[in-house]
Structure formats: C-alpha cells, structure tokens
C-alpha cells in the first residue's frame, strides 16, 4: 500500500471500520513507515482530545424539571393551535345548521308578514260590517278608510246584494244624512241591473 492510500484509511483504521484483511495491510505499512505512523498518531490525538471535550452538566434540578417543561410547552402549543384553528368540523357543521335555521325562520317570518299584508284586503272585505241592509233599524255608517267596492270596477262584486228601494226604512235615515255616501255604499252591494233600477228611482 502507498502512503496516500494509508492516509485515506487512517480514520477508518482508528474507528475499527475496516475489513480484517485491510487492517492487516495498514498495520504492515505502519510498521515500516515512520511518516504514516506519525500521521496516524496525530489523528488519534485529535479523536482523544475531541472526545475529552465535556459538556457541562446543567444539574439535577434541570433534569427533574425538564419533562414538565416539555409538557407545559406542548400544552401551550396545543391551546394556541386550537385557538388559531377556529371551530372544529363538527362545530362548523352545527353552526351552519343553526345559521340555516335562522335564515329559514327569518324567511318564514317575512313570508307570513307579506302574506298577511296581501290578504289583509280580502280579510277586511270578509269581516267588514255589512251595510244596514242586513241590520234593519240602524243607520248605515261608513268608515272613511273603508274601501269602496264601486271603485274596483268588477261587476261580479257588485252583484252580492239586491238593493232594496231607497224608501226602505233601513236606508232612509242614512239617505237623509248623506245621500252621496249612501249611494256609494249601495253601489258596493248591487249588480249593474239593480244599480240601473236604483238610478231610475232617483
């Protein structure tokens, strides 16, 4: 073996990391080469000195507390991660359901309000007190806000009641007080044919 080859094998030789046959070759060379022996000794000294460099012991208390420090740090990181991650998938799912329920409830409420508003007119019509035609002996009173059926322009709605003669006792007082209003109210209860008859009477 040459000196250069030995140089390459110095560390493995000292580390006992060579095949037995190679160890024999190196040993044979070292026995006959002072230069390589000095080189080998230098490397051995390096390893001895490096190995002799100790790490200061931080003390028993440090070692006793160390596992608790690790545990504490883990707990801190896990709580931070939970905070940053926000709600879990489970929480997000039920949160979504609750939000959807709220939205549906709001939509249903709006629908009810709109429906009530739309039906209000029909309800008013159905519940509005009939003119005194059906309540003989009392004068007919018309609320200022009460819709006038005559204004709606639908013939079918006019044909609900066959208007009695203006001279009927039921209508007489009302006619005496406000003939125009009485006429308009009557118009809301009569069909066209009756209206014609009424106008003819007038």
């Amino acid at each position, binding site marked *: 073996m040459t000196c250069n080859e030995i140089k390459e094998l110095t560390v*493995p030789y000292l580390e006992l990391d060579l095949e037995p046959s190679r160890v024999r070759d190196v040993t044979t060379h070292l026995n006959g080469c002072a230069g390589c022996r000095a080189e080998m000794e230098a490397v051995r000294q390096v390893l001895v000195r490096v*190995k002799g460099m100790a790490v200061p012991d931080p003390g028993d208390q440090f070692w006793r507390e160390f596992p608790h420090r690790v545990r504490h740090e883990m707990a801190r990181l896990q709580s931070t991660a939970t905070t940053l991650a926000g709600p879990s998938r489970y929480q997000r799912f039920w949160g979504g359901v609750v939000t959807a329920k709220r939205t549906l409830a709001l939509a249903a409420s709006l629908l009810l309000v709109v429906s009530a508003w739309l039906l209000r007119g029909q309800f008013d019509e159905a519940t509005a007190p009939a003119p005194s035609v059906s309540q003989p002996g009392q004068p007919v009173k018309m609320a200022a806000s009460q819709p006038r059926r005559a204004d709606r322009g639908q013939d079918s709605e006019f044909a609900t009641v066959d208007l009695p003669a203006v001279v009927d006792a039921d209508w007489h007082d009302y006619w005496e007080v406000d003939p125009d209003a009485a006429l308009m109210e009557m118009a809301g209860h009569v069909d066209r044919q009756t209206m014609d008859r009424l106008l003819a009477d007038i």
Partner: protein
Amino acid sequence: MAASDYQLLDRYAAGDESAFEELVLRHQKTVYDLAYRMLENHADAADLAQKSFVQAFLHHRSFKRESSFRTWLYQICLNQCRNALRDRARLVHEDVEELALAAPQDTFAEVAKSELKDRLGQAIRTLPARQREALVLRVYHNHAFAEIGVIMSCSEGTAKANYHHAVDKLRRVLMAGEG
C-alpha cells in the same frame, strides 16, 4: 424488563402520561448533549432539546418506525440545530458589521487570545455544519455510520466522508498549533 421506546410510544398514544415522562427521562440527556455540542451554550441547548421533544410528541403519529425512536429524535434535534445555526449566522453577520464600527480594539485581541487557548474547540466551531454533525454523532454519541446517515438524511458513505473531512481538518489545526 424495561419497556421499549415503541411500547412507551404506544402507551403514550393510548393516553398513558407516565410513558411520556419515561421517554423524556430516557433520552433527555443525549438530546441535550447533541444540542449543546452543536450550539455551545446551555440556554440554546435547553430550549432546542425541549423543542425537539415537543415536536416528536406532537407528531408521534407521523413516525413510521422505520428507525429507532432515538434516531428519529436525533433527526428532529439536528433539524432544529440547523435552523438555529442558520438564524445565528444571520444575526452574527449583522452584529459583526455593527461590531466593526463600535467595538474597541482589545475585543479582537481577546478573541484572538481565546482562539489560541482553545484551538480545537474553535476548529470544531468553524467546521461546516454537516461535518460537525457527523463528528458529534460519531465521537460523542457512538452511532454507526449507517445510523448517522439516517439521522443526517444522507447515505452512509456521505456520512463517513463528512466525518473523515472533519477529523482531517482538526488534525491539521492541531498540528499547526503544535508546530
């Protein structure tokens, strides 16, 4: 008979907190030693050893058990060391620029004196990170080169080469100092 690291990990995964403590107690000194030899001060080494265990336990489910728990722990620790040394190098670079303007002359004299006093320590400090890792793992932790390769995420041959280069540099430094 003492439980193996794998058994302790299984127990920890099942909620046994005593297994956690046992694993830490079993490996805390070697992990701290590795961190100290890479970073050379107690505060950084303690912090880094702690981080290594935290990472290992937080991610224990991703440990595939293709190596020993200790090797895996060393891998984590070395990665943390590399990051710390990288950060430190950046800070030192910035500090040196400030130091050159502000430091008195005798600061440099003290540094030079310290260098002469501990040539070997200084030489180890100036080794490239990979060579230093191989040296520490081999000389202080007695790992086989195959295991060093796993820890350093390189081949066994590369681990050996890094180690040989490190020893050779130290030999030259030592011989220059004595000569």
